[in-house]
């Protein structure tokens, strides 16, 4: 896990604070638009145009292109908004968790089950 810093003291965790909120504003705004089915369709039909409309910076555009959650967080994405992006592809929270932790989905689910013990 990445090391903690004074501003982000919990390892492997990006607290969504003012700095992240400013950095991720355009990205989160685009993801917020995915509450509407018509916008989800518009994204799928022309991803480049849709990202351009929301003014994503190159880092954000690349993270969206890669469907990479850790990169999206690094680019300022907030988990609740990124979930709306993931929803377009029918991904659930275990898919997202597995991707971020480098596990298979079954391994990630087993990790969750193990927390019950």
């Amino acid at each position, binding site marked *: 896990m990445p090391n903690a810093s004074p501003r982000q003291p919990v*390892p492997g965790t990006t*607290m969504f604070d003012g700095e992240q909120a400013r950095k991720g504003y355009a990205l989160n705004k685009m993801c917020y638009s995915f509450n509407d089915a018509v916008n*989800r369709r518009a994204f799928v039909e022309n991803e480049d145009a849709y990202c351009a409309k929301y003014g994503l910076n190159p880092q954000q555009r690349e993270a969206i292109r890669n469907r990479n959650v850790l990169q999206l967080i690094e680019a300022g994405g907030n988990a609740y908004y990124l*979930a709306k992006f993931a929803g377009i592809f029918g991904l659930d929270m275990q898919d997202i968790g597995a991707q971020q932790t480098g596990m298979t989905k079954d391994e990630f689910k087993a990790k969750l089950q193990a927390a019950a013990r």
Partner: protein
Amino acid sequence: MAKIVGTITTSHVPAIGGAIAKGLQQDPYWKPFFDGFPPVREWLAKVKPDVVVLVYNDHGLNFFLDKMPTFAIGAAPEYHNADEGWGIPTVKPFRGDPELSWHLIEKLVAEEFDIVSCQEMVVDHAFTLPMALCWPDQNWPVRTVPVVVNTVQAPLPSAARCYKLGKALGRAIESWPRDERVVVMGTGGLSHQLDGERAGFINKEFDQKFMDSMISDPAWATKYSTVELVELSGTQGVELLNWVVARGTLPEKVRKQQVNYHIPISNTATGLMVLEPAA
């Protein structure tokens, strides 16, 4: 005068909406979670609330990051649910109670809680799913007042502040001159983290201490800072702040009517408690 007959605090994991839609209540994965609720419904049938004041956090349906109030209260005659992007079915609208909402807003602002009032508000899964778990036929027999706490964008209100808000909210409800029975709900948590390399974090030991504290030591969580709560309960585990607000509306001494805890539902350790004032 109005009386708070008890609190219901529960997790609000979105996947619950999918399980309800698919009728999976008896499925082995879901059963330990859903089995917590029949006693809650029996309790509700007994206490017959007129109103539910529901404390929760919005997840980017009503509020975007352009305007993020720390505390907001709905003051609408009706609250609609809407598409949140990932496909759980929407539910029927909820009746509001604008007179009670404004009473609460006035009393809380008089007590120096600077509340954002919302005459239009859509309510997300954190509001609709706990209601659907309590009333599975979704014919809502109560009027509702949404109370929204920012657990999304730091700085969050501290647990100490949330507990004080709960106490003030309790006083505000019980100064409402109508003879009505009120249930306060608090939704979210318990420990879970959706994002980062630490995704999948769950802390059973902390959750159980927190649930015990809800019964016998209600100020316990107030000793923790937001960062400490993230460390102990995960980035979304901090939704327990909504439980802290709800608990604050009850007196020091309470009786437990129902407790359930189950790991995991989706990525979450789920908790459920029903508490009544002991006096």
